[in-house]
């Protein structure tokens, strides 16, 4: 995948800069921090059919998106992934830290290849990073549907 040049949202750009500045070992440590800090799924979503499964991840992850009805339609992300899947949880943690609370317009503007621009491919392998590409695609699709219903 050729890297696009579309800028990342500020929070995600900061995360990308931190990851890029770290050694391969340091990137794994940061990813583990994001895994540890992923907020738990709110009880209202426990076992909910509203959760969408992300098949692109090695270990399946579930996610859902809420979009505030009033302008600027801020986006909130919710994830469920088991503790035995820390890489997948770490990917979710990065997306949560980088995108949660942004206006829908800004989330939709995130380039599809953003996960490939975080310096993670060298640390965890490009194949695994594809799982994060899948997460982002599903998040954007849900935001599109919920911000512009009908």
């Amino acid at each position: 995948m050729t890297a696009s040049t579309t800028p990342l949202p500020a929070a995600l750009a900061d995360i990308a800069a931190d990851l890029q500045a770290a050694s391969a070992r340091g990137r794994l440590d940061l990813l583990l921090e994001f895994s540890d800090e992923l907020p738990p799924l709110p009880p209202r979503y426990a076992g909910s059919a509203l959760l969408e499964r992300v098949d692109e991840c090695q270990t399946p992850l579930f996610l859902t998106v809420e979009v505030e009805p009033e302008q600027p339609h801020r986006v909130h992300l919710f994830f469920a992934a088991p503790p035995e899947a820390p890489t997948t949880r770490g990917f979710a943690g990065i997306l949560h830290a980088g995108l949660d609370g942004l206006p829908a317009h800004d989330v939709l503007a995130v380039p599809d290849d953003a996960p490939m621009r975080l310096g993670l491919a060298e640390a965890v392998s490009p194949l695994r990073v594809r799982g994060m590409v899948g997460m982002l695609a599903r998040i954007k699709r849900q935001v599109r549907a919920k911000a512009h219903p009908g």
Partner: protein
Amino acid sequence: MPVPADPSPELAQYAHPERLVTTAWLAENLDDPGLVVVESDEDVLLYDTGHIPGAVRIDWHLDLNDPLTRDYVDGEAFARLMGGHGITRDTTIVLYGDKNNWWAAYALWVFSLFGHPDVRLLDGGRSAWVAEGRPMTRQAPSRVSTDYPLVRRDDSALRAFQSDVLAHLGRPLVDVRSPGEYSGDLLHMPDYPQEGAMRGGHVPGAVSVPWARAAAEDGRFKDREDLEAIYLTEVGLDPQTETIAYCRIGERSSHTWFVLTHLLGFSHVRNYDGSWTEWGNSVRVPIVRGTQPGGV
């Protein structure tokens, strides 16, 4: 062998009991300087969440696969990898990992291609160790690098290529994927991305034994008697006959290769690591769909 085998009576039933260790034995022998514990998981970060004290991580993507060619690393890269973890040719390696030792068995098979003399699996893997409340740490081990010798990888005895499988058709093959992949309804395991092959089905004549049937409820290997009931009686494999195992990319079939070779004493089992991602994408190779092995 540098470190004596685990004498636990429950291992004595197997053909090569020296290839397995129990959690209790490992706990007692963790500090043995001749032993290095290696964790190998599906999730590369699982090791960082906590691992057996002193264990090093070897990752199938990052450490065992050649980054360019679809192949395993060569002797030089393997020597760097092992030497970097302070492993010598005399070291007893105990492998363990997640998912019933699926990836640990894969690493063990790759180590065997390089003829590392003493490689063993921790029976029950990571989950058994954790379930027993044994110590885990996030502290990275500090090991002094060694000069691991440059050993040429020898694929001839343990690895089958597509041409070998074509020449082998009509003789015993075991497909260890899920029933849906075997029949051709799925192109990958249930719950995983459906990708990787143009055609679904199995190699003609292959019998179906999903790999995880070798594991008991607690993740340890089933008793020999139960394994023989599956592999010998139920599907008719024969320990004296050349057998090839395959799956999607050769990892799950490494687990079955271990079971047939080291637990049941099969004399000649090869792992076809090209597996379905090669066979199901190849032009004009024969494929059978459905639940029956089918003929050649």
